[in-house]
């Protein structure tokens, strides 16, 4: 019956949201009580942070370059090509830097977390860990989530810098404009609220990608096929949630720091 299907789907959705909320809250509160697994946090920070550096640098450079190309074409119609630096810098720092980095890193790491933990679930390694008296939430989930948060913060700064540099390269070598003017405008337009917006968002996005990746990994069922399914769900939901939460955060941050 179609009504039953809708009802069951709605119930499943509510149940999943409830499970995720409890899971994410428990992973967060684990940070404030012993035992803490610092070596695991450092290993995950290396995997997520250094491992994602190349894709963040490349995507940052390309996005900054594209922004400079597109904006120059539009701005030249108004004789305002001089503000290309301002446009690239504000767009990268306030929006594209955090969101793009979040989505890129979730594509790489939420999937990796879901598949790694999912494989451990289906091969009973998680049960073995519990049977050995070790809490997998503390040992596996909490270090991954906090490594995601801290590394996404720094990766966003890298992406912002690369985006501005990419825009600068395009401005100088393709649009044949003045590089000093570009950098001067890019720097001059920035206010503290812009920087705060750009640095608050990756904290939330890191939490989302880490918790979603681990959540779908830890609730994997159905063998290797289930691992594949969890991986897809983790990437899709992490990306969608990052974009949705970006919308909410932007609303809140614009209320807190209204534009001049």
């Amino acid at each position, binding site marked *: 019956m179609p009504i039953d299907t809708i009802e069951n789907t709605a119930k499943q959705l509510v149940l999943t949201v409830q499970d995720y909320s409890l899971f994410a809250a428990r992973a967060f509160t684990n940070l404030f009580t012993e035992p803490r697994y610092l070596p695991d946090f450092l290993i995950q920070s290396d995997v997520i942070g250094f491992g994602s550096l190349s894709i963040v640098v490349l995507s940052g450079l390309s996005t900054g370059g594209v922004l400079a190309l597109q904006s120059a074409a539009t701005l030249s119609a108004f004789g305002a090509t001089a503000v290309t630096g301002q446009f690239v810098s504000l767009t990268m720092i306030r929006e594209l830097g955090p969101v793009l980095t979040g989505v890129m890193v979730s594509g790489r790491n939420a999937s990796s977390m879901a598949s790694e933990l999912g494989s451990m679930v289906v091969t*009973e390694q998680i*049960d073995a860990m519990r049977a*050995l008296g*070790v809490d997998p939430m503390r040992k596996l989930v909490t270090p991954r989530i906090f490594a995601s948060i801290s590394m996404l913060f720094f990766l966003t700064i890298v992406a912002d810098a690369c985006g501005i540099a990419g825009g600068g390269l395009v401005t100088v070598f393709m649009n044949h404009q003045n590089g000093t003017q570009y950098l001067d405008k890019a720097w001059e337009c920035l206010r503290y609220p812009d920087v705060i917006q750009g640095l608050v968002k990756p904290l939330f996005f890191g939490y989302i990608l880490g918790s979603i990746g681990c959540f779908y990994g830890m609730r994997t069922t159905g063998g290797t096929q289930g691992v594949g399914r969890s991986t897809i769900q983790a990437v899709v939901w992490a990306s969608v949630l990052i974009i949705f939460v970006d919308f909410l955060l932007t609303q809140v941050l614009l209320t807190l720091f209204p534009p001049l």
Partner: protein
Amino acid sequence: MNGTSASAQPASFQSSQLPASASDAAADAAPVVAFRKVSIAFDGPPVLENISFSLAPAETRILLGPAGVGKSVLLKLTNGLLRPDQGSILLFGEEISHMPETDLFPLRARTGMVFQEGALFDSLTVRDNVAYQLIGERVPDDQIDRRVRKVLGFVGLEETFSLYPSSLSGGMKRRVAIARAFIRTPELLLYDSPTGGLDPVTSTTIIELVMKERDVYRTPSLLVTHRLQDAFTLCSHRFDSERNRMVPLPEGETDPNTTFLMLEGGRLIFDGSLHELLHSENPFVREFLE
């Protein structure tokens, strides 16, 4: 359910080994594990229904039954990896069916569990797998190495110290899993089909290890298997520490502390000794034995 009293045993199967006083003491002592009317279901009919039994100190209980009957579920209920829908489970005298997960970890740390496929951590070496709990307890490295080498020696795998699980055979993985379960000298051992899918020679090696742990350390254990041969070997042999191998008990004798449980359709249909099992009138038991 068949009775558990060992009355009127024919001469062909006499329980032996322990002096009567030791056997009585084991039976009188508080059980290490006790199930009371335990039931569990997963989105469907009950997997286990109204299960009651207990495991006394120094006792080995062999859980028999065909594949998919709920044997592994029962084992996971024993140390709280799964929670029952109904009934109560006592582990080391503590009720665990509603115990918070955080309180269960210390109890589980006193228990060794061998999983069906070994469940070794594939990103860690054999040394780190076996020493997993010790590393967590921040035991000094030299002490860890010494204890790991000793327990690997116990299972006959000293040479695998630095290898990764991916380079081990199925039987070796199972033995490393046994070493991991043994390293902290647990107060209870749970074996989930330790010989499943292995060749007869490797199976015998594994059963010999289980027997060694039973007879040398007298650790109470719950062993799941669907291989009657393994179960009967455990009953009819003892481990000879001097010769470092298992030897058959005298003709007609069985280990008195090794008893049987049998599951069918989610229900416990047999609880008793080897003698009682062999003379059971239950049609399913008869079919299973034949």
